[in-house]
C-alpha cells in the first residue's frame, strides 16, 4: 500500500530539494535561525530577563542572517552585532510638512522611506527604491513565519 500511495502521487518532496524559490530559501533560513534562538532564550533565562528588546533582537538577527544578499540585511547585521544595547529601532518618523511644493513632498517621503529601511540613509534614491522592494517582500515572509510560530505556541 505504501508503494501504491507513492506511485500514485507524483509529487515527492525530498528533504533537501535542489530548486528552491527565494522565498522558500529565506523561510527555511529564517526559521532555522529564529526557532533555536527562541528556545535557547526560553530555556536559559526563565521569564525574568526575557523582554521585548531581546526578542526583537533575536527576530531582527534572524532576519539579517537570512537576507545577507541584500544591502539592508548586511547593514542590519552590522548594526545588531555592533550595538546590542541600543534599541533605537523605533520607526515612527514625523512628517515635516515644510514645503507644499510637489517635489518637496516627494523628497520628504523619500527621506522617510530611507529612514524606514535599515541602511537606507547611506543609499542613493535608485538603490533605495530597489532595496525597498526586496525589504517589503522579505518582511511579508517574516510576518508569515512569525505568525506560524506564534500560532504554534499559543
Amino acid at each position, binding site marked *: 500500500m505504501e508503494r501504491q500511495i507513492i506511485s500514485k502521487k507524483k509529487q515527492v518532496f525530498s528533504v533537501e530539494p535542489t530548486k528552491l524559490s527565494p522565498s522558500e530559501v529565506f523561510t527555511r533560513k529564517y526559521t532555522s535561525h529564529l526557532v533555536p534562538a527562541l*528556545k535557547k532564550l526560553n530555556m536559559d533565562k526563565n521569564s525574568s530577563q526575557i523582554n521585548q528588546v531581546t*526578542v526583537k533582537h533575536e527576530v531582527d538577527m534572524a532576519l539579517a542572517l537570512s537576507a545577507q544578499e541584500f544591502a539592508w540585511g548586511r547593514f542590519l547585521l552590522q548594526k545588531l552585532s555592533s550595538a546590542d544595547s541600543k534599541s533605537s529601532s523605533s520607526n515612527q518618523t514625523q512628517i515635516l510638512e515644510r514645503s507644499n511644493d510637489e517635489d518637496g513632498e516627494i523628497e520628504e517621503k523619500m527621506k522617510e522611506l530611507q529612514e524606514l529601511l535599515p541602511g537606507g540613509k547611506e543609499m542613493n534614491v*535608485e538603490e533605495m527604491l530597489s532595496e525597498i522592494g526586496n525589504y517589503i517582500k522579505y518582511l511579508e515572509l517574516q510576518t508569515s513565519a512569525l505568525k506560524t510560530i506564534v*500560532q504554534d*505556541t499559543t
Partner: protein
Amino acid sequence: MLESLVSLESMSLSFMDVSVLERLKWLQQQQYQQVQSSTNASSELLQFQGTNNDELLQSNFSHFQMLGSGFAQNYGMGFGSSHDTMDGCISRTSSCQMDPADTIGVILKNSEENIAISLKNKRKSEIKTREEEKTEKKIKVEAETESNMKGKSNVSNTESSSDTSKQTSKGASEIQKLDYIHVRARRGQATDRHSLAERARREKISKKMKYLQDLVPGCNKVTGRAGMLDEIINYVQCLQRQVEVSNETMIISPLTKFRSLNRDNLLQFLSMKLAVLNPELELALEDLSVKQAYFTNLHVVVASKPSTLVDAPLFPLDQQGSLDLSVINPNQTTSIEAPSPSWETQSKSLYNSSSLGYQY
C-alpha cells in the same frame, strides 16, 4: 507628441516676429545649396521656381499696373523706374539664375497677399527639398520629425524646416550616443550629456516605482508619485508593526511551549504552505484568512505530537480512511502514538485539500 506640436506652434509664432526678409533669405540659401548638391532634382526645382518667379513677377506686374492706373501721373516715373528694375529682374530670373536678393526685393514690394502666395510657393519647394533630405540622410530623429510634420498645416512646416537642420546636427551627436544609452531625444529637448543621463536616471526610477506598485497592494488606485510613496510607507510601517505585535505575543504567551516547538515540523509545514501558496506569495501578501485555516488545522497536530518525533513521514490520507500508521517508514526508530480522533479529522481535511506527499 502633442507637446512638441504646441511648442512648434509657439515657435512658429515667434518666427513670425523675425523679419521676413532674413528668413526668406535663409530659406532661399538653403534651397540653393540643396539644389547645388543634387543634380537630378535641381533642374526640376529650378523650373519650378522659375515658373514661380514668373508667376510672381507677372502678378506683381499686374498689381503694379493696377496701382499705376489707379494713381495720378506722379507715379508714372516711379512706375517706369520700377518697371525697369522689374524688367531686369525678369531677365535675370528667366535665365534661371537664382538671385535671392532680387527676388526678395521684388516680393517685398508686394502686398501681403502676394507675400502669402510667394511663401506658399516656397513652402512647396521646401517640402520637396526636405523630402530629399530625408531620403538622402535617413537620420532617425529627422524621420520622427518628418512624420510629425506631415500631419500639420503648411504654416508650421516652413518654420520647422529651419529646425530640421538643427535636428540633423543633434541627430548626428545622438547616433554616437545611441550605442550606449538608448534615450530618444524629443523635439525641443536638450541633448547634452547631463540631461541625457538625467533622463535615463528618471526612467530607471519610474521603472522601479512601477515594480513597487505591483508589490504593494492597493497602490494601483493611487496615482502620482507622492500618493504611491505614501502607500509604500504605510505598508512598510504596517509590516513592521505586525512583526512587533508577534514579538509581543511571543513574550506575553507562556513561553514554556517553546520547548515543544519543533523546528523540523515547523519547516515542514512552512515549506508545504509555501509550495501551495507560492504563486500568491511571489506577487502580494497572501490572504491571512487562508493562512489561519491552515494554521488552526495543523497546530493541533503539532501540539499533540511528542517532541521526540523528529522525522515523521506524513503520508497522504485516503478519502475515507484514517492515517495508517503501519505504513510508516521502517527507518523510523521512535514509535508514534495513536492519533486522537480530532487530529485525524483535521489532518484529513488538511491533506485532502493540499494532496501532497512527503518522502524522506
